[in-house]
């Protein structure tokens, strides 16, 4: 259910926020279009696990993400824009598909730690 909600929110955002910058970003996203590249867990382990430790299940450099009550829109915005001095902005680098995969991964985490 959460996964479906995440996808719906991301699609809505994609349809409504179509700046020239984002169009360019989507077109230039260079991660190979394979199933592996769309895997949010893999993407998380490539980039996000450095700070959101235990795969996002526990607090470390960055906050715990499992069970977060932040809405998808908030998470999407934070990933795109970052937080000065704390989290990089990935808006230049991620396609909307990758963003969706990340949100889906975060929502799949069990809050049991």
């Amino acid at each position, binding site marked *: 259910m959460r996964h479906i909600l995440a996808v719906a929110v991301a699609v809505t955002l994609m349809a409504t926020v179509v700046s020239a910058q984002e169009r360019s970003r989507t077109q*230039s*996203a*260079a*991660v*190979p279009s394979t199933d*592996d*590249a769309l895997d949010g*867990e*893999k*993407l*998380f*382990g*490539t*980039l996000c*696990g*450095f*700070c959101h*430790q*235990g*795969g*996002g299940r*526990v*607090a*470390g*450099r*960055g906050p715990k993400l499992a069970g977060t009550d932040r809405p998808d829109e908030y998470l999407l915005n934070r990933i795109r*824009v*970052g937080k*000065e*001095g*704390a989290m*990089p*902005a*990935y808006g*230049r*680098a*991620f396609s909307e598909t*990758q963003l969706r995969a990340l949100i889906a991964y975060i929502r799949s985490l069990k809050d049991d730690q």
Partner: protein
Amino acid sequence: MTTQRTVLHLACLALVVLVAGACSMSTSDAGTTRATAMAEPGGGNDWTTYHGTYQSWHYSPLTQINTDNVKRLRVAWVHHPGRSTRGLQSTPLVADGVLYYTGSYSRVWALDAATGKPLWSYFPKLNDDLVAAQTHSPYTRGIALGQGKVFVGTVDGRLIALDMKTGQPAWDTKLVNSEKLTVGFTGAPLFVKDKVVIGAQGGEWPGRGPIFGVDAASGRKVWEFFTVAGTEEAMKTWGGESWKTGGGGGWMAGGYDPETNTVWWGTGNPAPLYDWAGSDWKTSGPRPGDNLFTSSIIALDPDTGKLKFYHQELPHDAWDFDSAVGEFVMLERDGKKLVVHPNKGGHVFVYDRKDASVVNVWQLAKNINFVRGVDPKTGALIGRRDLPLGKHTNLCPAIAGGMSWNSGAYSPKTGLYYKIGQEWCMDLEVIKTTPVLEPQAQLDIGANFTLRNPEGAKAHGHLSGRDPVTGAKKWEVMFPEPPLASLLATGGNLVFVPDPRGMLRAYNAETGQELWSHNNGIGHNGGIISYAAKGKQYIAVATGWGSLVGDEFGALFGEPYKSMPKDSGAIVVFTLE
């Protein structure tokens, strides 16, 4: 003042016999002073290069502040640069009565070293999109001085020269395509002869980690050396095209040996950081092979950028225990000219300066199990713990290392090397990753991990005074959390340790006895120096918290780190009351 100066001159004269260093409290010819201070041990009145001198001693021969009177040390002045995002992580420099320093966003200040009165400032206009896209942004850890200029790197890939007297830009050279690679410069440059040497960020950033030699007069790039596959021999140590995203980098300023005209530099780890091939890393995985010249020390000709020789401290580093630590402590023992270099994994390597052949390797951190040991005769790793795909527990040290990037100190008076060791471990799950390119997204990790206490103990740190060649320990002081700032040794027989809780402490360099402390009100994660201006000796320390290693402290240690600000910092300067 006259009495002080006389006493100091006498003390300095004695020291000159010991170390043949320059030592004077009077103002002398500016150019000569700077050249002498950089090249000779000790540094005299000034502190003109990141590591104090080319020998990386982090030592001031000044004796006005000493074991007898350090209890009278008080704050002389404070300077707040503003916008200290991630704290003030830099090391100030002093030349001819002026203190220069940089901080977050590569802002540069020149202050009267005796009073703190601002003389000029320079705030470069940065590419805000790039600043926002960087994990380690926006700090800058240091500057260099030479040819009447101040040199500073920027996180958007530029090296800038400013006039020392006015702060006006002399040149501004774009060296890295940061728009594509999302890396720039955070480390200090090193001024050598007529060149400025500076290394780009690297490590788990999927690039090739270049180091540059730039003409100090014009800003023209003279050479570029890739720490990933920088020679034909090195290219063969990367399977397939893995060298294209190999990582590396040289993000801390190194040292220079004028006798052999050799720049010594440490390099970062390869990318991805962890390797799911496990023990099959020679033939499979994301980067098969030794991965030269990552996690290595390299010797470069400063005139041409040509590699003279190297030693790879960790062939195929699969733990992020790189060699980027910038201190190359140069000394002599039994007629041999040696250089001592700490590796992030927790071992200290001792090399012959003529060819980087290994003279000894000794262990500083206690909790180490990524290898069973390191051969002290060859430097070869013994009993590697390679980590295949899946879960692993209790890897020691943790990713934050047995030692961090800030520097220790060496005192020619005591013959001891003072260094912080870090004790912590972690659990991790190694996973397959795909680097994000075009534009490059920072980081290619290859694992999810969680820091933890070592078995049977709490995570902690320690300061020890040791023989730099054998590692024999003379004394040790324990800390509940590892201090992350650089150390300072002085001719007054003192060792200064800026700690993470905010206390600046002074110890007897011979015994480790604590003699003085002062609460700066926020953690330390930058440099500390000593200098003289208008007849008085000063201690200057950078304050402020928020590095990536420091970011671990809240989850691991709780308060005061959970609530410690990460957007504050200042230069705090002390002298005798």
